[in-house]
């Protein structure tokens, strides 16, 4: 692909609100995960809960969209002046030429979960539930489009934990084909009973903090997050460049990765080909790295097969928790921060590195200029994505 300018980006996770909080957390190796409950869930788990979501208010015109997921999205849109940058892009290109392509896995399902606890004697749902604007999977895209007064193509990509990464690929295609001139991409997912109890049912939710690449790792820690970026057709001095996108399927199993990471390796190779880069030109890889036994083992094999054992890699799930449909977007933003600051973040909570894993996993942050960095995202249903970004030049 022709490199696409990333002209603005931001994120909100349990680490804090905006780029400065995240840059500091990566530098200092702090985690947003705590042993805590969420809403009415009292599970033995470490969760990455975002502060101040409940206090967030939506404008009256968007009141029907009010739910935790859209409140978190609103917080992210207002961070780092992102919404202002989008308004400038809309003024430049025309609102119809700015798309909204964003990822989520569960959207505002928490609203419906709460509503089901309040059904009346006939089983009817309470009148306050606005299903299309909150729980419907497309709610996030419609909310972001309305909040930013955009009129271009808008949809949600929902491919489980690769959703937020695949949003970048979809936008880059539409810009290259001249269907649009710019797009808001990214993703937002918030904690809910479905994913908390669902991952527990699958025995993938750790009672310990998640420990990607550790020999004792026994599951993931859930988090929530929102991250958005603005891609434009051209820009004189963008924040970074999207150089390539790779997408693939496992075609293997609904909830377990291919044991040798065959599909994951396909996605990484496709991203390299799309970016016209050789593996040794990539300076850092932000792993999917969930901390489950199977994911890390399969991803390690795939990374080593495609890139060899020397490229520095780490997972930032130990910082933020696994933000599911937003993870690809959150980690794209963390990868962009790594490029901006010349800081390779290290993986947290890996105290006894798994000797069976061969990749060059970072146990300490490294400070040095970076030119190219990749971000992996893999999801249920065997959905794989790899994004490659280049530093501002």
């Amino acid at each position, binding site marked *: 692909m022709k490199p696409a300018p990333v002209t603005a980006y931001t994120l909100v996770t349990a680490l804090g609100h905006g780029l400065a909080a995240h840059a500091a957390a990566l530098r200092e190796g702090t985690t947003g995960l705590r042993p805590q409950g969420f809403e009415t869930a009292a599970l033995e788990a470490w969760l990455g809960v975002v502060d101040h979501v409940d206090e967030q208010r939506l404008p009256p015109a968007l009141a029907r969209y009010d739910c935790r997921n859209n409140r978190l999205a609103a917080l992210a849109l207002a961070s780092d002046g992102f919404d202002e940058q989008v308004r400038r892009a809309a003024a430049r290109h025309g609102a119809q030429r700015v798309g909204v392509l964003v990822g989520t896995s569960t959207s505002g399902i928490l609203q419906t979960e709460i509503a089901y*606890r309040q059904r009346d004697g006939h089983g009817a749902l309470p009148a306050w539930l606005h*299903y299309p604007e909150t729980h*419907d999977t497309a709610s996030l895209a419609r909310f972001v*489009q309305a909040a930013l007064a955009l009129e271009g193509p*808008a949809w949600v990509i*929902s491919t489980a934990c690769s959703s937020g990464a695949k949003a970048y690929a979809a936008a880059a295609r539409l810009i290259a084909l001249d269907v649009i001139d710019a797009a808001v991409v990214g993703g937002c997912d918030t904690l809910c009973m479905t994913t908390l109890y*669902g991952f527990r049912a699958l025995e993938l939710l750790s009672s310990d903090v998640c420990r990607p690449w550790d020999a004792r790792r026994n599951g993931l820690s859930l988090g929530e997050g929102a991250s958005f970026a603005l891609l434009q057709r051209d820009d004189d001095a963008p924040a970074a460049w999207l150089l390539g996108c790779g997408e693939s*399927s496992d075609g*293997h199993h609904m909830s377990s990765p291919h044991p040798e990471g065959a599909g994951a390796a396909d996605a990484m190779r496709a991203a390299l080909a799309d970016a016209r880069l050789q593996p040794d030109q990539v300076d850092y890889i932000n792993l999917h790295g969930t901390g489950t036994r199977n994911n890390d083992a399969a991803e390690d094999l795939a990374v080593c097969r495609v890139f060899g054992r020397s490229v520095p890699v780490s997972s930032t799930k130990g910082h933020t928790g696994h933000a599911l449909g937003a993870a690809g977007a959150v980690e794209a933003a963390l990868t962009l921060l790594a490029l901006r600051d010349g800081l390779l973040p290290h993986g947290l909570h890996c105290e006894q590195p798994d000797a069976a894993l061969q990749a060059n996993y970072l146990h300490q942050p490294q400070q040095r200029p970076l030119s190219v960095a990749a971000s992996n995202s893999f999801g249920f249903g065997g*959905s794989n994505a790899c994004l490659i970004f280049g530093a501002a030049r």
Partner: protein
Amino acid sequence: MTALTSLDVTIAGVGVLGPGLRDWAQAAAVLRTPSDWTAAATVVPAPNRLPATERRRAGVGIRAAIVVADQACTMAGIAVDAVATVFTSASGDPETCHAMCEALARPERLLSPTRFTNSVHNAPAGYWHIAAQSRQASTSLAAYDASLCAGLLEAAAQCCSGRRPVLLVACDMPYPAPLHALRPLPDVFACALLLAPPGGPAGWPLMLSTAVRGEPTRCGNAELDALRRSIPAARSLPLLEALARDEPCTLVLDGDSLPLAVRVATRP
């Protein structure tokens, strides 16, 4: 603002399953003379392509999506492991969602692992790629009443930018009570289009643009048109009617906030 370009693709295969529509062969005959269409509940057969374990675990939406995907690939004569896929659905799997919300409203909150796995919006895509033994790229979209148009635009964009065949599958299912009161979809509707770059397999040349003038095209039968308006995936019906007639025409596909202008030519 620059002039909008159109995306040019070929429709090499079609699949359909809906009220009174069993498969493309039967549907094409009915849609040529829409007054012949009679309402009848959608019958979703068990897809042979799914391995036994997956067939047991697959709900109605997954089965419907796989049945129409197979129809389109068979008609195009294309190997199922050679096509990238775009799945689009407004509803996802509302039966699974309802069952999980009920279970989560009970004190013990016991979820079935299979139900949770099947609740992801890309479950039909995951099952299809397992059944097809395909590692090709796949995406799954939702855009409320614009879901069909979003899927068609994404599939055409992938086909044009990758110069490779792309299978579009649109599928929606009705919501059980009490969600049905908030989103009343009447029945299952699924359709699939196998899009190929021009110069590839034979089919109907299609030009797609987001520059739309005029009102959405209606179906040739009032009852069928009511179906079109009531299920997001059924917004494909005017296009399916045009393919059935095999006459050149220009349509506006109703996409809510994302209408599409579509020009269909006859098959060479």
